[in-house]
């Protein structure tokens, strides 16, 4: 395939045209109870043609990556654009498609293709064995999703961008049972351990130790008390803060939600355009950034799909809302500054506003001091259940594991911990933020019509909130 030659043959079909070639290899390895459960490898390969005709972008994606196939897709993209010119939502220009050249590559010490199916199998079977800490363990699972993605994009205005991503998501989980009680513990909540990294992540010693701990905590939960039902202080670990930030900061700040594009599917936002610069989103301890420059986080990149260079930006500073999550198209529509987050899940979808890495900046507290400051509260870890309304307002989240805090000390282990609240009052109840931070993410953020799953990363500290409604099963 010679994409440059194909571009030359179609570049006069529209006012502007780009070709985005995406190849992605996804390997899923899963071992349950020491036996292979899933071994799947998928190769996705296609080209998205994007055209600008009379101020409207049209798209056509094809898995026929021959010269003829791409030229056919170009004709269809032009047809799409022309058919909507009189009913377009906005009159776009090339300002929304800056000329960009550059390359990006995930930081990798040991290439993923240097690690064989047999090596993964051996480690994962041993991880399953390490989880057999008790006869009460009834199910053990080790899972890895390994993704290698290559984006190559060129345009009639001279852009040329190449980005290579090496991504690994892992999970080691165990279920313990006694009578009709079942408790499952995963590592940090499902596949939340996901990074841009190489095969160096498969460190045998660390994996076996972490697997054993997960299983021990599953057994511990069987005999633990239920989380109490009361209003009290809530300390959240970074692996739950990830979800809290994602749902109650990331999504409501996406400009396409505020503009109403997403209303029919995931919903819109309680945030209004006039809130930027005025809304006290949270307490003064709250500082939130969009940062695609983090070294190994899930959604780091150099350019978004529009060619906009990715830079770190403050969204919320000392609790006040400053900036939202909109790419160049949404910025033009809303007349507000945004970020480089025009992203598509693959070659077969048009890019939309996506949150990428949304991080909570560190505070000044030490975790032990935060615990010591609590007279009565709950410390929750690892997300298990999530639900929030279409305005990203009223939420209810559940965790896998918790500890009661009494008189400044961690005391009993609690099972089935949940909490609920409303976004702005909740963030305004933030009363301590730790210095220490951890990075997690999700490979599965769903959004858009047609639907798209995309990767997001979140680096967050431990956070302490006052007077939150918590409850158990």
């Amino acid at each position, binding site marked *: 395939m010679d994409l440059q030659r194909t571009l030359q043959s179609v570049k006069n079909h529209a006012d502007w045209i780009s070709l985005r070639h995406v190849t992605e290899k996804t390997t899923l390895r899963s071992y349950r109870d020491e*036996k*292979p459960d*899933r*071994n*799947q*490898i*998928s*190769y*996705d390969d*296609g080209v998205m043609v994007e055209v600008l005709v009379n101020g*409207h972008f*049209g798209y*056509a*994606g094809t*898995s*026929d*990556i*021959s010269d003829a*196939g791409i030229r056919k897709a170009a004709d269809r*993209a032009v*047809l*799409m*654009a*022309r*058919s909507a010119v009189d*009913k377009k*939502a906005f009159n776009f220009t090339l300002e929304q498609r800056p000329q960009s050249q550059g390359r990006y590559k995930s930081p990798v010490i040991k290439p993923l293709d240097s690690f064989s*199916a047999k090596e993964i*199998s051996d480690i994962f*079977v041993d991880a399953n064995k390490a989880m057999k800490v008790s006869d009460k363990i*009834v199910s053990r699972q080790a899972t890895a999703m390994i993704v290698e993605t290559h984006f190559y994009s060129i345009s009639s205005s001279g852009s040329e961008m190449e980005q290579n991503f090496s991504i690994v998501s892992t999970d080691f989980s165990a*279920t313990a*049972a006694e009578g*009709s*009680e079942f408790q499952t513990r995963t590592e940090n909540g499902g596949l939340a351990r996901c990074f841009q990294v190489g095969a160096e992540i498969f460190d045998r010693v660390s994996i076996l130790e972490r697997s054993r701990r997960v299983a021990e905590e599953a057994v511990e939960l069987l005999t633990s008390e239920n989380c109490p039902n009361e209003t009290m202080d809530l300390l959240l670990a970074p692996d739950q803060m990830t979800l809290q930030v994602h749902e109650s900061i990331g999504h409501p700040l996406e400009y396409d939600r505020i*503009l*109403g594009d997403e*209303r*029919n599917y995931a*919903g819109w936002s309680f945030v209004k355009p006039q809130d930027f610069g005025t809304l006290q989103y949270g307490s003064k301890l709250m500082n939130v950034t969009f940062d695609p420059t983090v070294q190994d986080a899930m959604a780091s990149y150099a350019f978004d799909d529009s060619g906009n260079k990715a830079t770190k930006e403050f969204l919320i500073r000392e609790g006040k809302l400053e900036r939202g999550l909109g790419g160049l198209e949404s910025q033009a529509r809303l007349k507000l500054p945004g970020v480089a987050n025009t992203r598509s*899940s693959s070659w*077969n*979808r*048009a890019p939309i506003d996506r949150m990428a890495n949304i991080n909570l900046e560190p505070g000044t507290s030490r975790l032990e001091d935060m615990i010591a400051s609590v007279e009565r509260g709950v410390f929750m870890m690892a997300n298990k*259940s*999530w*639900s929030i*309304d*279409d*305005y990203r*307002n*009223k939420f*209810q989240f*559940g965790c896998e594991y918790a500890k009661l805090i009494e008189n400044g000390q961690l005391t009993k282990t609690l099972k089935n911990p949940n909490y*609920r609240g409303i976004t702005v009052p909740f963030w305004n109840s933030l009363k301590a933020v730790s210095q220490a931070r951890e990075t997690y993410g999700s490979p599965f953020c769903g959004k858009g*019509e*047609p*639907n798209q*799953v995309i990767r997001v990363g979140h680096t967050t500290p431990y956070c302490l909130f006052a007077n939150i409604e918590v409850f158990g*099963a």
Partner: protein
Amino acid sequence: MNFTEKTKDGFNKVADHILDQLQNNEAANINLHAEDSTFIRFNNNKVRQNTQVEQRGLSLLLQKNSRSINLSFSITGNIEDDKKRADQFLKMARTECDLLPEDPFQVPLQNNGQSDHSFQGKLLDPANVVEAITTPAAGSDLAGLYCAGPLISANKNSMGQSHWFANENFFMDYSLYMGEKAVKAVYAGTEWNQKDFAANLTHTQRQLALMNRPKVELKPGAYRTYLAPGAVAELTSMLAWGALSYNAYKQGACGLAKLADKEKTLSPLFSVRENYGLGLTHRFNSLGELAPETLDLISKGELKSFLVSTRSAKEYTTTGNAAEGWEGPRAMEVLPGTLKESEILKQLDTGLYLSNLHYLNWSDRLNARITGMTRYACFWVEKGEIVGPIKDLRFDENLYDCLGQNLLGVTDFQETDPQVGTYESRSFGGKKVPGMLVKDFKFTL
């Protein structure tokens, strides 16, 4: 040849090319998923984005010396190019199998027969869709997605099995807005009829007019509630999250385990079955196994059958029922009852009328407790009369309550909820559900 004919010709030749090369110690199962789709996204009755996607993908399950690997890959539609790709992936699959441990639950491939169904629709020309939708919706704040085109699923295996299912269909999944108040609708089928779409739109506009009253803000609590079919469709979607999976039951992740163990009961008014007679999807699964035309899952409140894949059946030494590996319903039908549409508001008397629910999740899986939000046209009703739309409420409710002793009635009509999922590619399927009247539905926030 059109897209469907070209894809069929290519699939048969490329799949046979793979199967012809298998050695004595090998068996293979091949699936095709293909579509040629038009996607048009609307906001404010204008076009936000429009995209055409032509894609074909093959998946190859190779079994060799009791090992299994599943490889999937995009194909181009050009037969000779795709044969070369297939050669490359077959070679890779063999190498993988040599590296993997034995799979004790490998399902031996069988010949589950042949089927061949192609349904031609009457779809709008992609160039005319924008006009066909925006003109009758003029003056409305419409947001949503139009999606249409041929959609194909096919299967072959090395035992001689062969299945083909191709359909040309469309859906217009949309909402109409009045400020922040909204009503949702879907117009779907295989033959676009402009008058029918206009009528669908008019009906939705009339519903929206009901929203033009002051919002009612209710305190958390337990309310007598009518769940319209759209709300029931969302609620029963949770049954696909492991609640009817035998594998989940055996591994401690089943939402209805206590029903299976007879520790809890559901109402005799509640019955669920798989019903492929609804015509929403094909009966063959990815192994080419044919599911029974109908399968009772919950009958009059009692669990009759889990969904059991052949792999689970082998692992747990039981009988399978041709479920997919994820063991969720693919053609769910919740059976109707006797509550007439004209009686709904009267029977509800004073309480909540919920047209839809949103963002559901287990809040306590082992006790079948679910949380989620009200969404779209949801009303407060007093003495059988609609007072006004409500401010959104969060519920946290136990299925053993709302589908158990608190289930007061099930409507005598059902509505089809077509599958409108488009993650990676368009999905087949859907469900058919009635409305339900329950008492003491619990709202928390």
